[in-house]
């Protein structure tokens, strides 16, 4: 078991290194330079552009060959130095430190919302198989899967913020994270991000439950005279949970990387998605590489945690 974890960790580091290298090369080989933004200001003031550009590039080592830049970046990274953000004029780690919480709260709340409602609805649909409720849940999940999250966000703003006026149309960072106002303004983003996930969970929970609902051990449990809630909750659900965990964990990766970014943009939430998009447009390679790296590690960690969680859920599973 310990060997397995160590092997997986080494493997994760290799994958993360691969992704880091690809991102770094893509960004540094591109035609524009992070200094370009500075240069615009300087050109506007009528100063000599070339000498200033060379001075800045020399100071940050941007004029060296790309391989040398790569190794010095890697060296710094291994010593815990994540580099300097040119567009925000602060260390990358500080920039990420002040913005991660906005992404985290959104992803956390949306995931909780989707898991509780999705698994709940899916269980009900399976128990009430072939009833009107089941069909309604099935149609709802098809709609939820097919609706683009960012458009759903726009529609929620249109109906609940513009027409009904229940919410503000923008995200207000003046509210503290732990305030009720902040929670209230997160309702729409959480729905926009969570409904797609929720719809998927309804579908998977339903089919995972149905796979087990007609097995013999369920009949046995009923024959023993156990109440229906115990049969469903303890016998069926526990056996259905393994495939569900895989789906949910796998989805979390796509939420972190895809949906949350777009939701942040639609609602103007200043999370890591916004930060990395702005960084791409400003050619701020250190920020982009850092955000990509953090996200990648998160996904790899989730994968590992899922695999280890299996051994707890199903003691028959052993890793060598």
């Amino acid at each position, binding site marked *: 078991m310990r060997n397995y974890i160590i092997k997986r960790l080494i493997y994760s580091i290799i*994958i*993360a290194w691969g*992704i880091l290298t690809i*991102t770094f090369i*893509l960004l540094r080989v591109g035609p524009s330079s992070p200094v370009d933004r500075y240069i615009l200001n300087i050109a506007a003031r009528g100063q000599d552009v070339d000498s200033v550009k060379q001075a800045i590039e020399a100071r940050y080592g941007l004029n060296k060959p790309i391989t040398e830049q790569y190794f010095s970046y890697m060296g710094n990274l291994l010593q815990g130095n994540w580099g300097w953000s040119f567009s925000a004029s602060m260390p990358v780690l500080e920039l990420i430190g002040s913005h991660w919480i906005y992404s985290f709260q959104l992803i956390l709340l949306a995931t909780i919302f989707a898991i509780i409602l999705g698994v709940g609805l899916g269980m009900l649909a399976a128990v009430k198989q072939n009833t009107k409720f089941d069909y309604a849940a099935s149609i709802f999940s098809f709609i939820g899967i097919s609706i683009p999250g960012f458009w759903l966000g726009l529609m929620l703003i249109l109906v609940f913020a513009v027409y009904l006026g229940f919410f503000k149309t923008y995200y207000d960072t003046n509210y503290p994270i732990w305030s009720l106002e902040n929670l209230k303004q997160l309702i729409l983003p959480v729905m926009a991000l969570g409904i797609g996930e929720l719809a998927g969970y309804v579908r998977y929970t339903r089919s995972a439950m149905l796979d087990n609902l007609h097995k013999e051990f369920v009949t046995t449990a009923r024959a023993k005279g156990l109440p229906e809630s115990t049969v469903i909750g303890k016998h069926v659900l526990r056996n259905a949970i393994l495939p569900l965990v895989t789906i949910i964990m796998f989805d979390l990766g796509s939420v972190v990387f895809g949906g949350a970014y777009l939701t942040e943009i639609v609602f103007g939430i200043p999370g890591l998605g916004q930060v990395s998009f702005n960084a791409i447009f400003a050619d701020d390679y250190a920020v982009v590489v850092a955000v990509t790296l953090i996200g990648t590690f998160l996904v790899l960690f989730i994968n590992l945690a899922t695999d280890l969680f299996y051994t707890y859920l199903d003691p028959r599973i052993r890793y060598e």
Partner: protein
Amino acid sequence: MSEEKIVSRGGIKLPVHVNRRLVRYYWDRLKKNKLSLAGLGFIVFLALLGTFGPFFAADPQHVDFDVKNLPPLGFSTQESIYDIKTSTFTTTVHPGRPDHPLGTDSKGRDMLAMLISGSRISLLVGLLATGIAISLGTFLGVLSAYLGGWADNLLMRFTDVMMTFPFFLLLVLIVFIFGPSLTIIVIVIGLTGWTGAARLIRSEALSLRTRDFITASKALGASDNRIIFNHLIPNVASLIIVMATLSIPGVIMAEAALSFIGMGDPMSTSWGTILNTGQHTLDTAWWVAVEPGIMLFLTVLSFNFFGDGLRDAFDPKATV
């Protein structure tokens, strides 16, 4: 009823059996799923609209500020103008006009023409990018399974890296570097979207490889190429078709999301581009954000329904 057709392969004329009965059998099974048929119907409608529509519709990029923000037929907007001289408000009602049945956006561009242009782009991007991704995935999957050993290992590790790569971030990054054009978008989605297909096809091909008919053709002296193209690929064909159908909606959504954040091809009008304009006029012209979203949603829903029906039709175990 099996029909013989003569095709030429490498200069030698060979009879090929086109099994009409099999196609008929799958079609009969598919027909029983009404939602799937409805999905297919909408896809055909969209294809006709995208192919022939632009020849009849107005120019989607034609700007005319005289008719800006016109509502769709059956709706009307109110405009209040304050007259300083008489200090009175005059309220004019702008009803929808038959020459712009779906309204116009804030620059007076015709919504109907833009939606038609968008359906062409969405389908084109969806089909081409999926085509590239699925061909590449099939090729790499079969190759990996067939070669085995270190080549298989290397290919699968590379697949792992690509799978962990934050897809949307990579998309934005590459489009930013190479410039927003439809060709680049199609190529990037195609070159990054093959991982799922490669894995699935590989595992399917691995289990096929040990089957007797493959061993038999090997014993008869069939070349590797022949085994791959005449035995392995036809046997995973149904899997490939279902996979392709179900990955088209993801591609369409990715293109829409990209255009929505302002990284679409500026030379063409796609649904995402319209949504990008529409998000700023939610309070004055809701239809600009609503209409392309509905098209996008219906398209994705149709492909999901159709793909689901196809999967059931191809699955001998499923009851339809």
